């Protein structure tokens, strides 16, 4: 069984904890690899972006094949970038660096064909010391940037000049290799403000509520062809599975590093508290990254978001071009940085400010598969009884909103809903859950 994180060499992994109270995971042991392995600096939180950092901004990646699980019981063979010495993971590690860093990524390729690592949003990237340029073999284009042959290595390097969110992916046979899973995200933080998205205070966010939502599609038939060494016809692409951070709903809301998802370390549960000018003044930040081949119209149902930047360019610099809406229309190859607040406008309270209309009766509510995240009461922070036989995952009367691709065929696992490119926003009462 593939295991996760022996952090190796200069790379360590730190995570943004979403809530101090829920920081610890009851999950498996950390493996120490041979040599000078370093333990991660902090336990990853249940939710929130999981950063892989390095004091020298140096990362060693290796390609690997492995299996991911889908909630319908299927497993799919995939390729991905993993940390050298670590186990297979999908997507590749989230590389987090600081503005001004000279970033070095060494890619070792163990797959049976050449693989490269391309960062389209980065300028001036070199490969083995020379500007990364398209590669021609016998007069034919074979890679958009230099690739590592089977068993070989390429070292990529660049200066992280612009804060923001970036994607990385293979530039070799991309229609196949990116579909197979060779993708990941890079985050560049501003030099002096780790809790700003860009170099302006208008991009400040709550560092305990920072999330990655990396969007992708999976065609299991094409992956099976690769698994069996059969021919791969890109024109037959027909995705059936849809993912956020390499998982399909409801695995998307499982904790980071869940034991039953050993090859899919990153969840995408958005876990916040109501906005408060004193206790919780800054918004959550979601970094959408689309490594897929089509627009994913991502809908944060019940909570509009403010787009503050795209492709590592702020929309909140000299002129405020940010905009609020209910949909992030994230296209292929794009990254969108979107902030979210949830404000308790009505302040409903069963004693002091009750909801002034009759509440729906239990028999008029529907519980899919006799399970729910509803706590039995529409009041934030209050739980109440539920029909006999209904299982509730609600803890203390928190709210849940379904966030999902509004191309609803993508909110399914092989056409069976709910599933796919879907997650939850969880809004705790102001004091959090005990």
């Amino acid at each position, binding site marked *: 069984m593939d295991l996760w994180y022996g952090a190796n060499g200069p790379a360590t992994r730190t995570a943004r904890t979403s809530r101090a109270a829920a920081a610890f995971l009851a999950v498996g042991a950390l493996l120490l690899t041979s040599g000078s392995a370093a333990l991660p600096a902090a336990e990853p939180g249940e939710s929130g972006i999981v950063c892989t950092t390095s004091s020298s901004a140096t990362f060693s990646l290796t390609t690997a094949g492995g299996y991911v699980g889908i909630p319908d019981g299927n497993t799919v063979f995939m390729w991905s970038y993993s940390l050298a010495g670590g186990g297979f993971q999908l997507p590749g590690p989230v590389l987090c660096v600081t503005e001004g860093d000279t970033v070095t990524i060494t890619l070792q390729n163990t797959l049976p*064909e*050449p693989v490269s690592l*391309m960062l*389209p*949003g*980065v*300028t*001036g*990237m070199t*490969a*083995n010391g020379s*500007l*990364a*340029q*398209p*590669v*021609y*073999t*016998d*007069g*034919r*284009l*074979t890679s*958009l*940037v*230099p*690739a*590592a*042959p089977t068993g*070989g290595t*390429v070292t990529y390097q660049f200066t992280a000049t612009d804060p923001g969110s970036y994607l990385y992916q293979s*530039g070799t*046979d*991309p*229609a*196949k290799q*990116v579909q197979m899973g060779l993708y990941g995200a890079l985050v560049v933080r501003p030099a002096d403000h780790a809790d700003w998205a860009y170099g302006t205070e208008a991009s400040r966010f709550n560092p305990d509520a920072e999330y990655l939502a990396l969007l992708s599609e999976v065609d299991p038939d094409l992956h099976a062809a690769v698994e069996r060494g059969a*021919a*791969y*016809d*890109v*024109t*037959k692409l027909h995705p059936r599975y849809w993912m956020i951070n390499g998982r399909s709903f409801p695995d998307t809301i499982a904790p980071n590093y869940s034991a039953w998802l050993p090859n899919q370390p990153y969840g995408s549960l958005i876990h916040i508290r109501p906005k408060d000018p004193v206790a919780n003044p800054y918004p959550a930040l979601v970094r959408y990254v689309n490594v897929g*081949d*089509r*627009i994913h119209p991502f809908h944060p149902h019940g909570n509009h978001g403010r787009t503050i930047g*795209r*492709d*590592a*360019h702020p*929309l909140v610099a000299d*002129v405020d*071009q940010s905009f609020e809406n209910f949909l992030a*229309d994230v*296209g*292929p*190859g*794009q990254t969108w940085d979107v902030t979210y607040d949830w404000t308790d406008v009505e302040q409903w309270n069963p004693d002091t400010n009750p909801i002034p209309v009759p509440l729906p009766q239990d028999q008029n509510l529907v519980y899919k598969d006799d399970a729910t995240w509803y706590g039995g009461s529409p009041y934030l922070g209050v739980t109440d009884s539920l029909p006999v036989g209904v299982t509730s995952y609600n803890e203390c009367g928190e709210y849940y909103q379904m966030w999902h691709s509004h191309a609803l065929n993508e909110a399914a696992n092989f056409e069976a809903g709910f599933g796919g490119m879907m997650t939850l926003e969880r809004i705790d009462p102001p004091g959090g859950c005990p």
Partner: protein
Amino acid sequence: MCLRIRAALTALALAVGALTVASASAAADPISHPTTSALSAAAALPASPCTLSGTVRTCELWARSGTLPLPAGSTPASVPVWGYAASATGPAEVPGPLLLATVGETVRVVVHNLLTVPTSLLLPEQNLPPDTTGAAPGEDVTYEFVAARPGTFTYEAGLTAGGPRQVAMGLAGALVVGPATPGTGYGTPETGYDDEAVVVLQGIDPAFNAAPATFEMSKYRPRFWLINGRAFPDTGAVATGAGRRLLLRFVNVGLEDHAMSLVGIHQTVVAADGNPLAHAYTVLSENIAAGSTVDTIVAVPAGLAPGTRLALYDAGRHLDNAGHVTDGVTDFGGMLTFLTVGP
């Protein structure tokens, strides 16, 4: 150790533009008609058949059938198309010839119908009522409008009963209206440029093109993806230079959206559907919706070495020619080209 063989390609001194579609010659260069004398290697608009007399700009188009060559090794090697020719005896061009005018001119477009079905013309961004009748086979129809604003626009077969199928067969192209003073897209410093290129996006479904009248359109699925009528490796490079500003006029007359991205350089969106933005924004990848135009400015850094190539491609990965494979690897094809940094 990764082998790198640099292809001995000379930077093509061409304006990315309309093609002369010859039924025989698959290796014909895309037309190069640079309009700037200072840097003949720089990308510029292709030639336009429109002529000016006084304040009237007359453009004549002949809607006719023709053949579009596909990259060497493709199956089929070419497809039947319908395209607009720039002269009575010229071949069908896909996309159609560039219609080029200056703001304020009265533009008169005459469509000569050499097809066997009625055809009309649609200029969606101009102030014209839609024409659902058009010209009968062998007849002409004339459209006249004032080019009221500068910008990048579309023209395509209009809304006769067969109109949508005619567009899918190749009857579409770009209309560019320049501002009074050349050198900007919209008369503003933000839209100033040194080099410019029209980038027309289309798809071709050979099965449809073989039987356009009867094909079941719900099964329409392009297998070839074109930039200015060519699929990679036959796409024309976009020549620019270090320290120069390049205006890319994206024109999507296909039936699908295309997110156009660059590698290693970003683009500033300055206009959409010929409407200049009050505040431009910069991105790497921008969606060009079917039927729409987007203008972006690429500011090429001063320090880039001559010969540097920067990919411009469909981020949705329409990067193949009907899935053609060599030695088990899908060949690069489709909607891909390169910005080339000249000397």
